[in-house]
């Protein structure tokens, strides 16, 4: 039996976009306009999760990306980087004008984010199932160093297929890392098709609970709900937190929503590009 709320899934599907959500999606399309390729669907499901994280929760200094007291955020689903690039540029970590260089031969903005090249990226990701373990190490380091900064790791849902995720989960619980939060972008679709057909995750909340996490689920496109939930972290004292964010892959681009072919798209034409901007304009 699924442990998730069908109501929240429906809310996420119906969630209207405000102006900022629309703007950030335009930035994503700006980025793919250069090389005409990118993981559009996985970025659009992430926008509100990341936007609320950077607008409301994380402490950081764009002009001092390695500020020691900053909170650490790792995008473990590195293929969602278009959303993160849009937000980091919006926050001033690097110029917005650089977004269209995404995937260009000499660009620092690659198809997966590299820490060495991009201000604001804590860890290079792309190979899935790595971010949690790195985050656990960072959270342990914060504790060892007596610092109260926090660590947030964002994973995809397909990414939870990786066994390493669950190794890290056991470790986070063992160390009672309540400075560690996992956000799962649960858009229900992986590259090949629906999660429940490829490798089902349910009952997902029960799984994280059983692994020793404080657990919550949320409409992952509702900025208000995400804000309230982030403000309540840690969900339980002495436990790491896992928030299952119900989202829609391709959210905000009607014809790309929940469409596997928009997981990754290359050779995007002028017409398709114009259609993307228009779809964002017309999204509810």
């Amino acid at each position, binding site marked *: 039996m699924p442990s998730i709320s069908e109501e929240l899934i429906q809310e996420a599907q119906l969630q209207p976009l405000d102006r900022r959500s629309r703007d950030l999606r335009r930035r994503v399309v700006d980025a793919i306009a250069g090389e005409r390729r990118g993981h559009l669907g996985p970025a659009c499901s992430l926008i509100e999760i990341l936007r609320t994280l950077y607008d409301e929760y994380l402490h950081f200094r764009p002009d001092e990306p390695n500020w020691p007291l900053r909170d650490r955020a790792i995008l473990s689903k590195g293929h969602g980087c278009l959303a993160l690039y849009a937000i980091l540029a919006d926050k001033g970590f690097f110029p917005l004008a650089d977004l269209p260089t995404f995937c260009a031969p000499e660009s620092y903005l690659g198809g997966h984010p590299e820490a060495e090249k991009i201000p604001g990226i804590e*860890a290079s990701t792309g190979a899935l199932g790595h971010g949690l373990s790195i985050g656990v*190490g*960072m959270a342990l380091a914060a504790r060892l160093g007596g610092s109260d900064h926090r660590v947030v790791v964002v994973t995809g849902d397909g990414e939870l297929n990786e066994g390493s995720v669950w190794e*890290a989960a056991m470790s986070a619980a063992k160390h009672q890392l309540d400075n560690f939060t996992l956000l799962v972008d649960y858009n229900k679709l992986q590259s090949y098709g629906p999660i429940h057909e490829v490798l089902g995750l349910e009952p997902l909340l029960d799984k994280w609970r059983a692994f020793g996490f404080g657990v919550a689920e949320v409409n992952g496109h509702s900025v208000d709900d995400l804000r309230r939930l982030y403000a309540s972290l840690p969900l339980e004292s002495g436990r790491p937190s896992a928030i299952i964010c119900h989202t829609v892959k391709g959210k905000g681009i009607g014809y790309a929503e929940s469409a596997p072919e928009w997981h990754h798209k290359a050779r995007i034409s002028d017409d398709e590009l114009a259609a993307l901007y228009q779809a964002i304009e017309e999204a509810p």
Partner: protein
Amino acid sequence: MRKSALNAVHQLAQQDERVVFVGSDLGAGTLEPMRREMPERFFMEGISEQHIIGMAAGLAMEGYIPYVNTIATFLTRRCLEQIAVDLCMHNLPVRLIGNGGGVVYAPLGPTHTATEDIALMRVLPEMTVIAPCDADEIKRLMPQTLEWPGPLYIRLAKGGDEIVSRAESGCTIGEALLMRKPGRVLLLSTGIMTQRALRAAELLAAKGIDTGVLHYHTVKPLDIKQLLALLSGIELLVTLEEHTLAGGFGSSVIELLSDSLQPLPPVLRMGLPDRYNGGYGSQNHLLTTAGLDAVDIARQVAQRINGDAPA
């Protein structure tokens, strides 16, 4: 050798607060003095090699110097992607200490022997690979690992191996050690093959074939400069390794020699065959079966030098 290496980790941790120890599920009592003295920097994380490497990466990104220890083959095969992406791509100072390099765990079978670990580690950019020959040598190398840049793989031998390294010879990561001057033959060896190389050189000398031994405790970066300086008059170079011939120490030597574009003597590579070990017994048994005991090494070298057909 393992005890020496782990005691050194404890000593380094006493000197430097950045040092932390991460194990998987090691033997009961491993590094107990360190655990008692500094429990906050001692981690035993369970049989989860992928996670351990990522966690060590996270600690290193925050300024710590993790020493990670488990059985060599689990530390290199199971979590190869984590080592490549989390450690090498980020060029982090994480030290991997692999127990039982080569066929030390012979009785436990091929799931436990590390016969391609050097190959796996040496192809990774930024990785340094060391394979000391005895416990004294690891004691000299360990202090140097503290400030060594980037990730480092330390291949440990069985322990109780004959001490052949000498304090007066010095020991610096990245520099080969000439243990016996070359004549017509020069044996290049790594790890505990150096003891066998020295015995084989004695046997060859007794037959009138002067043979030198150049010991490589560091496989990557490989000290090719010293080797090139020794080539004059050499009729046969021999590489010796407790490792499959595919992609290991001998391959590395040949690659760099070839790249030097110098006139080269013939190179005979000796190591383990390109298959998983079929028997059990002991390390010595498997090495002997592979033609890697001193008498057999000397016999094969003499055959080449004297132009005899190989047996």
